C-alpha cells in the first residue's frame, strides 16, 4: 500500500499554470506513469488551474490551492480557489461553453479534464469559490 500527500498554494499569475502542472507530473512519477499518462495529467491539471486563475477571481489576485494524493495506484488532485464561484456548474461543463467569450477561450476545459481523467467532480458556491477534484488510476 503506497500513500502520499502534498499541498501547494500559489497566486493567480499565469506562470503558475506551468508550475502547477510540472509539480503534478513530478508528484505522480512514483507510480511509474507512461508518457501519455503524464501528458494527460498535466493537461487536465493545467485546465483546472487555468480556470481558477482566469475565472476564479475574475482576473484579479487570489490564491489557488492544489492538493495531491496517491492511494495505491490512483492519484487525485484537488484544485481550489476562494473566488467568485460558478453559478451553473452543468452549463459550465458543457463542451464549448465559455464564461469569457471575449478572451478566445475554447470552452473545452472540462471536456479535456473529463476525457483525460477517470473522474472529475466540481463543487462551487457563488461568492465562496470552486473546488475541482479529479482522479486517475495508473495501471
Amino acid at each position, binding site marked *: 500500500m503506497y500513500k502520499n500527500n502534498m499541498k501547494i498554494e500559489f497566486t493567480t499569475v*499565469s506562470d503558475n499554470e506551468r508550475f502547477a502542472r510540472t509539480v503534478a507530473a513530478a508528484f505522480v512519477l512514483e507510480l511509474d506513469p507512461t508518457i501519455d499518462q503524464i501528458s494527460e495529467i498535466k493537461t487536465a491539471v493545467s485546465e483546472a488551474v*487555468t480556470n481558477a486563475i482566469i475565472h476564479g477571481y475574475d482576473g484579479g489576485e487570489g490564491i489557488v490551492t492544489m492538493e495531491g494524493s496517491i492511494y495505491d495506484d490512483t492519484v487525485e488532485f484537488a484544485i481550489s480557489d476562494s473566488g467568485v464561484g460558478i453559478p451553473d456548474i452543468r452549463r459550465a461543463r458543457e463542451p464549448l461553453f465559455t464564461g469569457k467569450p471575449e478572451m478566445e477561450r475554447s470552452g473545452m476545459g472540462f471536456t479535456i479534464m473529463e476525457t483525460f481523467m477517470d473522474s472529475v467532480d466540481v463543487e462551487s458556491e457563488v461568492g465562496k469559490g470552486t473546488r475541482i477534484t479529479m482522479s486517475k488510476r495508473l495501471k
Partner: protein
Amino acid sequence: MELLLSGKYKTLIVKIYGELDDRAAKDVKENVDRELARTGAVNVAFDFGAATFMDSSGIGVIIGRYKVARALGGKVIIYGASDTVKRIIAMSGIGDIVVVADSLEDGIKEAALNV
C-alpha cells in the same frame, strides 16, 4: 515561437516551441495578428513539431486565428502535432474547420493553397 513567411503561399508559418498554454497563447495571438496585417499573408500554418504541451488555451488561439484568416479569405493548417495534441484537436471539433496534416507540404496540398 518563431514566425516565418512563405510568400509563395501567402502563408505565415508559426513554429511553436515548448508549451502552448494560456500564457503563451497571448503572445501567439498578438504576434500572428500583427504579422498577418503587416505581411499581407492570409493563411496561417501552425508547426507543432517542437511543441511539448498544449491545453484548451491552444484551441482558443487556433479558433481565433481561424476567424482572422477566414476574414482574409485564408485558411489555417496544423501540422506535426503529437498524439496528445491531436486528441485535444479531435475532441474540440476544430478538425472540421482547419486542416490537420502530418507535414506542411501535405497541409498546403490539402488546403489547396496552390490552386
